[in-house]
C-alpha cells in the first residue's frame, strides 16, 4: 500500500510564537496512497503543523521536504501549486457562485474568447465524476447543496489541480453518519489512486475506520507514529492526554462526599437535546452536588452545558427545576431561573478586555436587574470587595483593565461575575483551561467550597483527572451522545473513563 519514499517529510519542526512553544522537534511523514491521521487534544499543535506545511506559518527549526526536495511555501496558494491542497473544517468556497464555478475557480478552461464555459463546466463535471458525484448539476448554485456535498466539492477542487497531497482538517465535524460514510468513500477512492491524505478528526471511530497510520502530538511535542492496526483505542487516548497525571494529583480536594440520591434532584432534565448538537440526554443535578461532564473534544460537553443554560434552544426534552416544570429557552430565562454559565471561550465570549475588573464583574448582575436600575457605585464596590477577596484575585485592583490580568485571574473574575448573580446552578465550561497550576488549584477549591455551601455545579473539563477529583457523579459523553454515568468513588480514575470511552461501541 504505502510507497517506500514519503511524499512529504517534515523533520525536527519547531515553531515558536511569542511566549509559546507551539511545536517542538516534531517529525511527520506522509506516504503516497495512505490516509494518515494527526491526533492530539486541543492545542496539541495539529493545526500549527498543517499551517507549517502549507507555509502559513514560518518554521523556526527543522526541514520540510516534498517529493524529496526541500521546500518552503509562502502560503496556501503556493502550496497548492506544488500539489498540496487543503480542505478546512469550514467550507471555504464561494456560495454566490455555481458548483462548477467553485470547482474550477482559478483553473477555468480558456478559449479564444476568454473562458469557455461549456468546457469549464464539463471539466468540473469530470472532476466530480471522479469522486462519484456525477449527479450534481454544475450549473446549480453552491448554496443549493448540503454542507456535506459542499465539503466534497471543495475536495474535487484538489482533483482539478491534480494534487498529490490532500489535507483534510476536521472535515467531518459538521457531517452526520451517512455523510461521513460518503466522505470516506471518496477518501478511499483517492487513496487508491495514490493520493496522500492527511486527516484530522476528533472522532475516534472515524479515525479507526479510515486511517492507515497515526501521528500523535501532545502539547506541541511529537509522541509517536503508529500503525492504526497496532495501537488500540485506550493506548491512543493515553498517548494523547499523557500519563503525567501526577503533577496535578496534589491539587484540589478529593472530597468523597456523597449526595443523598433519594432526595429529588434540584435540576432534572429528561430527553434534553438539540438536533445536530447533542442527542437527547437525561441529566440530574442535586443541591450541593458537582456533576462532571467528561468526554473528548467534540463529544458534546459544551453543547449540553449550553442547552442547560438556554444559550442554545433545545428542541426536545423537559426540564424541572426545584420540582416545577420550566422552559429554559434563552440565556435570559436561564438567568431568571438562577442558572449561570461560564463559557469555555474566555477571550471571545467571556471577558470584555478593555473594561475594568469591576465592570467585568458586575455586568451579569446589572443585566439581571435591567438597565433601569443601575447598581450604585457603593454596591459595585461591595461586590468587588467580596469576590476579589474570596476568590483571591491578584492584583486585587478593581479599576485595572481586565486584559492586564493573567488568564487564571481573569477566570476568577468571570467566576465572580456569575457568583454575584447568586445562582443556584452554575455551569462551568473549561474553567481551568490554559491557566497556571496555582490558579487552577484555587479555582478547583472555590468550586468545592461552593458545592459545600449548597450550590449545584456542572463541571466541564477536558482534563479527566480534574473531573474525577471534583465530581460526585460523572456523565460521560461521546460523539454527541451520553454513553454512561459514573458515581465517583475511590476506585474511579481517569483510566476508568478512558476505558469507557474507548470500549463503548461504535456510533450507530
Amino acid at each position: 500500500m504505502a510507497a517506500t519514499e514519503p511524499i512529504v517529510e517534515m523533520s525536527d519542526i519547531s515553531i515558536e510564537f511569542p511566549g509559546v512553544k507551539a511545536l517542538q522537534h516534531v517529525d511527520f511523514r506522509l506516504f503516497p496512497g495512505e490516509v494518515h491521521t494527526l491526533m492530539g487534544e486541543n492545542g496539541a499543535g495539529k493545526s500549527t503543523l498543517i499551517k507549517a506545511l502549507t507555509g502559513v506559518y514560518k518554521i523556526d527549526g527543522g526541514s520540510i521536504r516534498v517529493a524529496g526536495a526541500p521546500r518552503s511555501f509562502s502560503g496556501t496558494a503556493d502550496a497548492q501549486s506544488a500539489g498540496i491542497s487543503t480542505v478546512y473544517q469550514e467550507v471555504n468556497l464561494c456560495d454566490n457562485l455555481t458548483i462548477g464555478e467553485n470547482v474550477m475557480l482559478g483553473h477555468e478552461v480558456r478559449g479564444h474568447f476568454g473562458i469557455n464555459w461549456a468546457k469549464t463546466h464539463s471539466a468540473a463535471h469530470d472532476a466530480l465524476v471522479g469522486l462519484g458525484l456525477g449527479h450534481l448539476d454544475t450549473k446549480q448554485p453552491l448554496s443549493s447543496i448540503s454542507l456535506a456535498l459542499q465539503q466534497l466539492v471543495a475536495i474535487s477542487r484538489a482533483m482539478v489541480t491534480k494534487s498529490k497531497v490532500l489535507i483534510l482538517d476536521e472535515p467531518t465535524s459538521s457531517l452526520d453518519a451517512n455523510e461521513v460514510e460518503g466522505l470516506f468513500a471518496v477518501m478511499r477512492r483517492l487513496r487508491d489512486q495514490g493520493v496522500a491524505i492527511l486527516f484530522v478528526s476528533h472522532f475516534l471511530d472515524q479515525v479507526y475506520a479510515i486511517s492507515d497510520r497515526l501521528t500523535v502530538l501532545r502539547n506541541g511535542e511529537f509522541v509517536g507514529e503508529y500503525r492504526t492496526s497496532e495501537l488500540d483505542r485506550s493506548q491512543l487516548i493515553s498517548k494523547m492526554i499523557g500519563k503525567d497525571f501526577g503533577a496535578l494529583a496534589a491539587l484540589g480536594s478529593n472530597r468523597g462526599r456523597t449526595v443523598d440520591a433519594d432526595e429529588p434532584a434540584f435540576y432534572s432534565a429528561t430527553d434534553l437535546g438539540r438536533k445536530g448538537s447533542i442527542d437527547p440526554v437525561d441529566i440530574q443535578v442535586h443541591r450541593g452536588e458537582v456533576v462532571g461532564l467528561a468526554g473528548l473534544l467534540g463529544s458534546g460537553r459544551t453543547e449540553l452545558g449550553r442547552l442547560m443554560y438556554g444559550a442554545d434552544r433545545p428542541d426536545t426534552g423537559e426540564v424541572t427545576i426545584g420540582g416545577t416544570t420550566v422552559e429554559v429557552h434563552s440565556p435570559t430565562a436561564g438567568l431568571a431561573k438562577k442558572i449561570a454559565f461560564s463559557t469555555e471561550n474566555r477571550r471571545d465570549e467571556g471577558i470584555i478586555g478593555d473594561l475594568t475588573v469591576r465592570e467585568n464583574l458586575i455586568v451579569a448582575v446589572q443585566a439581571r436587574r435591567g438597565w433601569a436600575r443601575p447598581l450604585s457605585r457603593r454596591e459595585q464596590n461591595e461586590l468587588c470587595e467580596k469576590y476579589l477577596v474570596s476568590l483571591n484575585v491578584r492584583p486585587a485592583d478593581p479599576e485595572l483593565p481586565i486584559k492586564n490580568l493573567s488568564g487564571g485571574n481573569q477566570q476568577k473574575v468571570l467566576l465572580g461575575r456569575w457568583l454575584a448573580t447568586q445562582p443556584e446552578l452554575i455551569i462551568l465550561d473549561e474553567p481551568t483551561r490554559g491557566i497556571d497550576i496555582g490558579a487552577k488549584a484555587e479555582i478547583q477549591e472555590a468550586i468545592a467550597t461552593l458545592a459545600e455551601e449548597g450550590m449545584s455545579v456542572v463541571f466541564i473539563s477536558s482534563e479527566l483527572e480534574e473531573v474525577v477529583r471534583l465530581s460526585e457523579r460523572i456523565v460521560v459523553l461521546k460523539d454527541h451522545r451520553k454513553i454512561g454515568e459514573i458515581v465517583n468513588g475511590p476506585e474511579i480514575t481517569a483510566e476508568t473513563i478512558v476505558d469507557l470511552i474507548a470500549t463503548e461501541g461504535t456510533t450507530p
Partner: protein
Amino acid sequence: MSTLIERPLSGPSGSPAPARPTPLSRLKPKLETLPTLAAVVIFIGMIVYGEIAYGRIVQFSTVSNLLINNSYLIILAVGLTFVILTGGVDLSVGAVIAISSLVGVMLANQGWNPIAVVVLMILIGSAFGLASGILIQFFNVQPFIATLAMMFLARGLAAMLSTTPERLADDSPIRSLSTEWKVIDGPKINDLVITPTVLIAAVVVIVAFVVLHRTRLGRTVYAIGGSEQSALLMGLPVVRTKLLIYVISGTLAGLAAVVYTSKLGIAQNITGVGWELDAIAAVIIGGTLLTGGAGFVLGSVVGALVLGLMNVLITRDGSIPPEATTIITGGILLVFVLLQRLVVSRKRKT
C-alpha cells in the same frame, strides 16, 4: 464506490439525483437576477408612464439625449460595479473627474497635443485608483476611508489649480469627441444621434462585461465578493485583483472626465460633486449587492439610465421641483435595497 453513486448523499431527503434542469426551468429567473430584472421593469414602466403622461418619450431624440447626457455616468457606474462586486466602494471618482478635467483643459489651452492630454487625463484617474488600492491592500485601510481620503486630495488639488471655470477652446480636438453623428434622420429634430462618447461608453460596457464573465480576473472579482477568505484559501490572486479593481475604477473615472469635458467644454474644481453617489446609486439600482458577490454590469447601465430618465421625466413634468430629484432618487434606491434584503434573506432560508 458504486454505492455512493447509487445512493448520493444529496440533500435532506436523500432523494435520487436531481434531473438536469429542462430548458424551460433554465428560463426561470434566478434569485440573483431578480433585482436587475426589477430595474429593467421599472425602466420600462417609467418609459410607458412618461409616454402616456407627457408624450414624446419613445422617440429618437429622447433616446439620443439620454445616452449622450449619461455616457459619463454609465462609465463611472461600470467602474464602481467592479469595486462594489468585491464588497468595496470608491468615493473618489467624482473628485477625480474634477482634477482630471481641470488638468486636461488647462494643458490643452496651453497648446499640448490633444492625444497626450487625453492620455494624461485617463492616467490621472489610474494614479488615484492605484493610490486607493495600495492604501486598502497594503495599509489595511478600509475602502470607505481610503477613497474618502483620495476624494479630499483630488478635490483639494483641483481647488489649488483653479477655482474658476476653465473654458476649453471651442476648436479644441477634444471637443470633437462630442461631435453629433446623425444615424437616422427623423422628421423635424427627431433624429437618432450618437457621439463618439456614446461609443466609448458602449465599448467600456462590452469590455467590462467580457472581463467580468469570461476572464479569470472577473471570476476572482466575484469570488472575492462572495468570500475574500475563501478566495484567498482557494489560491486566487486576491491582492493583485483588489489593487486592479481600484485602478480600473480610477481609470474609468479619468475616462469619464474626458467624456464629460468634451461634452461641456468647461472644467471646474466643483465639477462632479456627488457623482460618486449617483454612480453607486446606479450600481445598486442595477441589482448589484452592496455587500458584493452578485450583480451585473449591464444592470448598472440600466441603473444609470433609470436615473437619467428620471431627470428627463421630472423636467417634462414641470410641476415637480428639481430639488425633489434627490428625494425621488433616494426613494428608488431604498426600494431596491429593500428588494435586495429580501433576496438575501430568501437565499439564507434555502
